[in-house]
């Protein structure tokens, strides 16, 4: 089962390992189809074409496979979905909890992965 978005879906822990090891810059939003998560998926879809150097993906929060994100040390204390993870060369460089605006997402992407490729 996957989320109802046009993003790449990470369905298993093995998928997650593959995507963060095969891509230098990765943003994964782990959430549900709810009011705090959907705006973040929509932002990702909206800006995906601009950030060709970043791999955008989502993962179902309620899947047992998402333990790779739910149990990550970087999300300890998080009390709002989605949990959004930013990976560079397989390492977490930033993690956020709850809804984020396009400006907030862009600021994190620009700071950690570089500005959109013209």
């Amino acid at each position, binding site marked *: 089962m996957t989320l109802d978005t046009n993003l790449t879906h990470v369905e298993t822990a093995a998928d997650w390992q593959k995507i963060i090891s095969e891509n230098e810059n990765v943003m994964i939003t782990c959430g549900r*189809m709810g009011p705090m*998560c959907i*705006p973040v998926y*929509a932002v990702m879809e*909206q800006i995906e074409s601009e950030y060709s150097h970043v791999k955008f993906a989502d993962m179902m929060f309620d899947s047992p496979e998402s333990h790779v994100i739910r149990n990550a040390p970087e999300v300890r204390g998080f009390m709002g979905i989605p949990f959004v993870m930013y990976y560079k060369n397989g390492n977490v460089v930033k993690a956020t*909890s*709850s809804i984020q605006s396009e400006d907030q997402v862009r600021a994190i992407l620009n700071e950690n992965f570089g500005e959109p490729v013209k």
Partner: protein
Amino acid sequence: MQYDVIVIGGGPAGLTAGIYLSRARLNTLILNMGVAGGQMILTHEIANYPGVESISGYKLSSIMKKQAQSFGATIKTISSTPEIVDEGHLKKVRVGENSYSAYTVILAPGGAPRMLGVKGEQEFKGLGVSYCATCDGEFFTGKNIVVVGGGNSALEEAVSLSRYAEKVTIIHQFDHFQAFPAYVDEAKSNPKIKFIMETEIREFAGDGKLERVLLHHKKSGIEEWFNAGGAFVFIGYQPNTAFLKDILPLNDRGEIGVNADMETAVQGIYAAGDSIAKKYRQVTTAVGEATVAALAASARTWELKSNH
């Protein structure tokens, strides 16, 4: 840059206007504030949109966006607040360093959930401050939490959160609730729910996560810290119209008044969707209003184009 019509807002009203205008061969710019689809994208299932048995708001907005683009509408996402200048037969819209002009403008900026806007709210969002009980309720299992608000959502969600939390305290600024009596009765009969009336939250605080809120008792003026491991804010919606207050008259709720052609008090500026003064807010009403606005704007635009 010159367009025929500029639409401000990319929700169902803005996208519908874009579809009608671009099909009418008008060079149309949609300035999208936030994510395309507006509040509609949050609707899990839309089952009352004629001709479509069932669809998610997310999918419907994606189709509307593609439809508008396929007819030639340009959609730009903006992060700065637009400023409209009425120059008679031309309207200018400034967004940051960019300036666009058109014969007519359709306003469809929609609405957004209201936030408290107090110290610490942004800092503790996702770390104890939440706006969705269904999304985040489980993170507050066994905690002492507060719910802010006095409408149907606040009372209903307080009951829902009592399944997880040890204790739920409803903080409300008035001495009575706006919620339906049935919701109030259900909350009052729940032993886990307590009430603090005529009180506002002035600050959220904690060490890395929310631990306490600063209460301001309106009647006595006394302020005191209240221990809370979570805070859920349900204080309604507001139209995204603050940027219009210098160019248009807004009512006391910040809504835009329109006539039967969906034209505002300023000739050549039309409005549709959740930001206008009206009783019912549905995807279908937004789409209908935008259709009228687009047809009226289209007629005026063609007239102005032929005269200038």
